[in-house]
């Protein structure tokens, strides 16, 4: 906490926000701002040079995060935040690249990029805000909508099987996987901090209330009611088998840090392999200033 800022009556993360863009567009009771606060706190605690941290977002409510964070920030196209971030990271490996986007963007339209970045162990930190629906466009059904939940394009309830995101990314090769809810502020902050400092593909799912659409359509009350649901139904189970993390409608939410393992990143693997095969012909990548 920045005491000086507090004394001036400022928002403690003001230095990391584009204050000339506030107020933000998020609804009262939405959880995205909460995750942004955790992210900002994690950045401050990480000790990273913030000039060397970039945020890439896709499209959607969470896609707007890039526009409010005062770092090098990119608001890209729907689903393509991860490949954009991949190019950015490979072009300038000294930059710590964070992808901050929603479930529809990352696991729906961008699902292929999600699994391939995890497979390559691309050195990215992916923060996925999961609000169980496409909120920006009016609460349509998503790849993460629990079965039987109602959505504007599932007016009779959702009968599809949703993704369990931690299971998906672990299977694909992610080296850090955690899930929290917007209620678990300190834990979210800690996970983001760990992920920022960990080389490789890190994925943090944060389940957040969408009051205006998901909650209203399903008559689940307001933001506080949803936080109460998280409080009553979350169970912290670090290291849980990601096969057992399915989310049912208003059911139990298994949260925690599930995966934290070591594996060479894309760039490390490339350097090691190419160095072995090509010897002196190979120019080690990412350690030189080629300006």
């Amino acid at each position, binding site marked *: 906490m920045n005491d000086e800022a507090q004394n001036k009556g400022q928002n403690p993360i003001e230095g990391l926000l*584009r204050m*000339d*863009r506030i107020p933000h567009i998020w609804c009262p009771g939405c959880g995205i701002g909460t995750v942004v606060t955790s992210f900002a706190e994690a950045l401050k605690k990480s000790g990273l040079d913030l*000039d*060397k941290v*970039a945020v*890439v977002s896709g499209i959607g409510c969470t896609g707007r995060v*890039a*526009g409010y964070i*005062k*770092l*090098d*920030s*990119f*608001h*890209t*196209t729907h*689903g*393509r935040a*991860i*490949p*954009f*971030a*991949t*190019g*950015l*990271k*490979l*072009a*300038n490996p*000294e*930059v710590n690249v964070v992808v901050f986007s929603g479930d529809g963007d990352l696991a729906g339209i961008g699902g*292929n*990029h999600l699994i*391939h970045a995890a497979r390559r162990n691309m050195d990215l930190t992916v923060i996925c805000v999961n609000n169980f629906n496409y909120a920006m466009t009016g609460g349509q059904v998503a790849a993460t909508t629990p079965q039987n939940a109602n959505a504007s394009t599932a007016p009779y309830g959702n009968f599809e099987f949703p993704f369990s995101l931690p299971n998906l990314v672990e299977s694909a090769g992610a080296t850090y996987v955690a899930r929290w809810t917007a209620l678990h502020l300190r834990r979210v902050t800690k996970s983001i901090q760990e992920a920022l400092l960990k080389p490789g593909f890190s994925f943090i799912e944060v389940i957040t209330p969408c009051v205006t659409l998901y909650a209203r359509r399903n008559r689940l009350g307001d933001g506080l009611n949803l936080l109460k649901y998280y409080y009553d139904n979350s169970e912290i189970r670090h290291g849980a088998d990601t096969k057992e993390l399915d989310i049912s409608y208003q059911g139990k939410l298994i949260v925690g840090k599930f995966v934290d393992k070591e594996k060479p990143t*894309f760039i490390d693997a*490339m350097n090691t392999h*190419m160095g072995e095969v*090509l010897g002196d*012909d*190979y*120019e080690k*990548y990412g350690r*030189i200033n*080629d*300006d």
Partner: protein
Amino acid sequence: MRRKKVKADPKGVLTGAHYMDGDYALAEGALAAGCRFFGGYPITPSTETAERFSERIPKVGGVFIQMEDELASIASLIGAAWGGKKPMTVTSGPGFSLMMENIGLACMMETPLVIANIQRGGPSTGLPTLTGQQDMMQAKWGSHGDYEIIALSPDSPQECFDLTIDAFNLAETYRVPVFVMTDECVGHMHEKVIIPPAEEIDLVERKWYNGPKDQYLPYKPDKDGIPFMVKTGDGYRFHTTGLTHDERGYPELNAECQDVSLKHLINKIRHNADKIIRIEEDQIEGAEIVVVSYGITSRVATKAIHKARKEGLKVGTMRLITAWPFPEKRFHELASKIKSFVFPEINFGQMVREAERSVKGLCPVVSVPHCGGWVHDPEDIYNAIKEASK
């Protein structure tokens, strides 16, 4: 437009005389131009370029990544450009279609990058291994919304090398995606390619900003109309978006801002069209018929033109080295002096429409279409010349 010129880094320049195909020459041109990031996805008939990159780039300090699809390839290029690299990808019909949305993002974010399209016959999967020139309009109009791009059209492996260097220079000069629109024939054609010494290759540097950090505005046009760029990680804490934005890069979703930013995107190319456009003309003086062509078709047309000239017909030629922006002024100029344009191309008549638009009814423009899969029979072009000269 004056911009700091630098010499090519000898590391990427394979100086000498080579026997190589157009696909390889594209890769060599890019490496000579300082391209150090390639993101791509395999598609016939462009794969040889990607293969060449994968072999060469690790030895010159760059990175090759085969992405999961073309949506990812083009997105990775935009990210790489903002990370400070000169990026390139190569593709063909179906892959080109998949890239369209993010080509719009590249235009909107004013991102310098180069995309080569080794055209094949379409639509859809069409003719994967056979030639076409059917994506010429797509290059200009394929992404939604209004914007301008630059497209070059090499007709030989040597030009694949030369024009790829030009493509990077244009991309950096105007902060715009530049297309190298070649075709399967040129891509797979083996010819002599002369790669000059690095000190003979002039490169345009990115327009780096070096003023006070807190005063940087990513979309404030400089005197020449082109905004300055910075590299991610250099402490500017800038923002950029695919939304309509103001000079700060902040979304500004209204008609007024749209008016300013769209006009900027379009006029930075249109107002410089005379500097960008390159055409090659022969025997235009006194010509009655001017045969217009680009890419492989310009070489096929040569036989027809020689035959017609032997018979005493006054035939001039115009080869479009730059396909976009289209040389409309030159067409209009010539239209009142000649009898007719004859325009063969391996599509059902695409660029010919631009020619028709440009001549404003002053003379006929005869289309010589070909559906793709092979080049024209020169006789067809000859017959069109003959018919037009009656």
